[in-house]
């Protein structure tokens, strides 16, 4: 006896040292290194599937969009809109350290025209180029004559000689169509059928994800809107920006943490108090969970050098399993009586406890076999967390809880008594009918279950923000930042040439209304190759002797010298503007995000799409358009993230199924013919949960499956507890199951109230599943004492 005590004391002291080391390491990580969890969902993709240029392109698109806040102020009357905008801006001006307005001027517009006029011979629209190849000289002569004679024949830039065939003005018009936004009275203007809007593009100075920025910007915009509405009550204000979504998400998460988190904490403490009349048990269980979490984090950080947020979230959910060890020990302590001391009790419980740990760890390690780094991290994190929590129970609990230090409340007695009246499953008609009904209902439910891997599961912005975003997108005809073409090449010129090849394909998609247009730098700066081709084409078709220009000369009774002078003048309009020069001008400013520049050994750019139509398989058509073109890659971020979620869902499903098998094999040596009784309640509960989800019209997503994995871990514990003491006169395991399940329901089931779809799915599955396992686990216990009990 003494020897045994010494042994457990030594264990406790050793563990204390280990925990101190863990605390020190964690303090160093959080306070010293100030680590932050990784939030990029693509970090969860298998490494070989990641492409640095692709990732940089996305980061580039997102970074540009991230710091932008766009406000539209609309009224039926332009004067009113301007007035409201002025009031709005006045409020913003008070915090120029936070938000700055993007400057616009009319002067800038004529400046950029001059730059392009110097190279206008190389600037054509796709339609003009086509017409130059197909239309006869007469067509161009007529066009030039109409322009000559008319008092106002449409857009005219410079004098007649600069653009006799209206080619440059056609190109300028096409460029103007790239955005519906127009300068007007020193403001930016855009309109729809009902209203005219002032567009205020704003730049956020601090990062959109800094909490202080979010806390300051949202009220500031609110104050500005209030002032504008006060000055002109009929005005409509639409605002959009990443910072608004981030602030809303933060607010929602904060609200949920305080309601759901507080609710479950109060519930758990109350439950423990009613069961044990003491707060010591809950403190002990929190201690084991805490050590488990910190230990897992420390070791994971040492192994992987980083940790993903999703790993942490899933890892944190292990509390549901980790608590079982402590609860099991405490419940047995409660019923064992004062004659048995804690180390002896532990020795008696060790086989059952070991088996629960082993089953859970093996189940989770199954995740490690998938090719996804995210799942591997989750596996290691979860397994480690459980081991650390388990060791805490084994090493510390016998020292911390002495015999007779726990008393049970009235609730425990009443609850324990209920077990005697619980139905038992057997080979009788009543059981079979119940089983059959459940089986049919579950089958129907499961057959209705669809899958959903939509990215929107991960975030859930308030409706008004989404509505504003949609309206803004429509008004501005802005390209989507998440679907675009990435074009690469060995030099800037090659990138431009490849863009042009892509654009020729996209032009046919514009005709088919798959997209309404595209934004590309080559729209503004054609490749040198194309410019040269165009110079030749224009010279050959229009300017050369016998061409449209000669014909024009004869029509207006001018001589060959007149035509030659115009030709000579036009042929000088072939200046070449460099990329960097263009991007520095005010005309280039809106397109800067399209140029990624040099990355490694190659250059890359983005071709962005406007007015993308999702109807008629638009995305698939676009993907096809990019196929077979050198250096062109279709990027669909939404689809990519959805496919990550989808693949994780499928893999996870297989892992759960495999885990059932592995756990069964593990249980078999100990429980033999009764091994199925341990696993069956969880399996039934999982299937019924799926069936209920199907009947409720929900679609299966990754987070349901993740919950099923956790449910396996939890449910097997309950099965083992019950099967360790199948005799119903001993209500201790039933008590452990009840407390553990109630805690799990309070901590995870309440997540079902979350408005974030992912958390809701997770919570709902845990809520239904855990409740079901709890209710049916006594039904599966065997009536006869099994062999292993005799052995212990």
């Amino acid at each position, binding site marked *: 006896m003494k020897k045994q005590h010494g042994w457990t004391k030594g264990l406790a002291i050793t563990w204390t040292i280990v925990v101190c080391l863990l605390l020190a390491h964690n303090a160093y990580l959080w306070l010293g290194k100030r680590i932050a969890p990784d939030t990029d969902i693509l970090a969860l993709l298998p490494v070989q599937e990641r492409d640095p240029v692709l990732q940089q392109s996305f980061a580039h698109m997102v970074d540009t969009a991230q710091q932008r806040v766009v406000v539209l102020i609309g009224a039926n009357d332009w004067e009113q809109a301007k007035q409201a905008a002025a009031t709005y801006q006045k409020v913003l001006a008070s915090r120029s350290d936070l938000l700055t307005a993007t400057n616009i001027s009319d002067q800038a517009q004529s400046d950029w025209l001059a730059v392009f006029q110097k190279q206008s011979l190389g600037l054509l629209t796709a339609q003009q180029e086509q017409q130059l190849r197909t239309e006869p000289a007469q067509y161009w002569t007529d066009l030039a*004559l109409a322009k000559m004679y008319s008092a106002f024949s*449409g857009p005219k830039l410079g004098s007649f000689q600069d653009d006799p065939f209206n080619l440059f003005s056609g190109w300028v018009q096409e460029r103007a169509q790239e955005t519906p936004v127009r300068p007007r009275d020193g403001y930016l203007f855009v309109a729809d059928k009902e209203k005219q809007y002032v567009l205020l593009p704003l730049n956020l100075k601090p990062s959109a994800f800094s909490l202080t920025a979010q806390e300051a910007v949202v009220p500031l915009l609110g104050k500005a809107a209030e002032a504008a509405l006060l000055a002109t009550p009929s005005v409509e204000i639409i605002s959009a920006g990443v910072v608004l979504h981030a602030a809303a998400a933060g607010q929602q998460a904060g609200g949920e943490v305080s309601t759901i988190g507080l609710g479950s904490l109060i519930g758990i403490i109350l439950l423990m108090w009613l069961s044990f009349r003491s707060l010591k048990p809950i403190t002990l269980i929190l201690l084991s969970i805490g050590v488990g979490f910190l230990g897992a984090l420390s070791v994971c950080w040492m192994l992987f050098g980083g940790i993903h947020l999703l790993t942490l979230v899933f890892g944190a959910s292990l509390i549901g399993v980790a608590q079982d060890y402590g609860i099991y020990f405490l419940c047995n302590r409660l019923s064992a009586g004062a004659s048995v001391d804690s180390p002896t009790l532990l020795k008696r419980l060790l086989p059952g406890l070991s088996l629960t740990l082993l089953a859970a760890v093996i189940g989770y390690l199954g995740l490690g076999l998938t090719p996804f780094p995210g799942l591997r991290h989750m596996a290691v994190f979860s397994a480690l967390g459980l081991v650390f929590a388990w060791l805490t129970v084994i090493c510390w609990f016998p020292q911390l809880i002495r015999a007779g230090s726990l008393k049970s409340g009235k609730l425990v007695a009443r609850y324990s008594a209920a077990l005697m009246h619980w139905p038992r499953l057997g080979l009788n008609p009543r059981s079979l009918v119940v089983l059959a009904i459940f089986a049919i209902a579950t089958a129907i439910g499961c057959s209705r279950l669809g899958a959903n891997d939509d990215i929107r599961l991960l975030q859930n912005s308030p409706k008004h923000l989404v509505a504003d975003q949609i309206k803004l997108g429509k008004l501005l005809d802005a390209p989507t930042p998440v679907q675009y073409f990435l074009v690469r090449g060995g030099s800037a010129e090659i990138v431009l040439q490849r863009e042009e090849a892509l654009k020729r394909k996209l032009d046919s998609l514009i005709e088919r209304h798959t997209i309404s247009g595209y934004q590309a730098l080559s729209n503004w700066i054609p490749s040198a190759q194309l410019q040269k081709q165009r110079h030749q084409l224009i010279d050959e078709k229009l300017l050369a002797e016998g061409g449209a220009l000669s014909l024009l000369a004869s029509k207006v009774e001018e001589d060959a010298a007149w035509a030659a002078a115009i030709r000579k003048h036009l042929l000088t309009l072939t200046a070449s503007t460099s990329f960097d020069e263009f991007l520095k001008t005010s005309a280039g400013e809106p397109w800067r995000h399209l140029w990624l520049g040099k990355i490694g050994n190659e250059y890359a750019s983005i071709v962005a799409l406007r007015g993308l139509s999702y109807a008629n398989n638009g995305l698939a058509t676009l993907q096809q358009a990019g196929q077979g073109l050198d250096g062109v890659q279709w990027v669909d971020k939404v689809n990519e993230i959805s496919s990550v979620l989808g693949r994780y869902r499928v893999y996870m499903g297989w892992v759960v199924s495999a885990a059932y098998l592995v756990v069964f094999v593990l249980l078999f040596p100990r429980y033999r013919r009764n091994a199925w009784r341990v696993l069956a309640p969880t399996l039934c509960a999982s299937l019924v949960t799926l069936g209920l989800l199907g009947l409720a019209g929900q679609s299966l997503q990754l987070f349901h499956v993740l919950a099923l994995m956790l449910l396996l871990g939890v449910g097997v514990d309950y099965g083992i507890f019950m099967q360790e003491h199948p005799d119903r006169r001993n209500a201790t395991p039933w008590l452990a199951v009840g407390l553990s399940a109630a805690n799990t329901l309070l901590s995870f089931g309440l997540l079902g109230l979350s408005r974030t779809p992912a958390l809701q799915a997770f919570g709902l599955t845990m809520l239904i599943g855990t409740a079901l396992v709890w209710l049916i686990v006594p039904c599966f216990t065997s009536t006869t004492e099994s062999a292993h009990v005799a052995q212990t």
Partner: protein
Amino acid sequence: MMSMMRLLSIICILLLSLFWTDSSNAAAPISKIQNMLAKPPVLCGRFDQTKQLQGMKKPLASNGRFCVVNGKGILWRTLQPFPNTLRLTRDEIVHLQGERVAMRLDAQKEPTVRMINSVLFSLLSGDLGKLETLFEVDGSVDAASWKVALKAREAALAKAIGAISLDGGAYVKNIHIDEASGDRTTIIFSDIKTGETAMTAEELALFAQ
């Protein structure tokens, strides 16, 4: 969009000469000119345009018909030597080359078109305020005729449209435009008819389109 400004100025001039009604707020020469001008609800006539482009020996002569209809808009039809039509209504500006639409500008989307139309229709309803926000008006008047020079208030607009002068009596007779590039345009109006019968069936149809 600069060319649109030029278009705007020419339209303003046309209207200026045809539809001045209220003189209470206008400057002295303007009010006198207004008193001289007739103000019919429908007015059609012939124009002869001569354009002298820089670097060309001969001037380019063209002619056609125009109609101004109160509340509806303006039709400007070049008939010789190349037929084309410009139509301005409340919602849009359309340029037709034969049957083909060469250009269509939607007032809803283009603020310049909006501005042109707002000036146009305020002038049609007799409101001079809008025009004076865009142009400085300088003129001289004698017993039966008048002469006016317009200067755009905005420098960019002035650069785009150049110097404009016009003269007339009961109706405007001549318009001269001198552009910075050296191009010069003269428009002479004649054969002016008013009333319901002034528009041909073809012109009515063009408005109805």
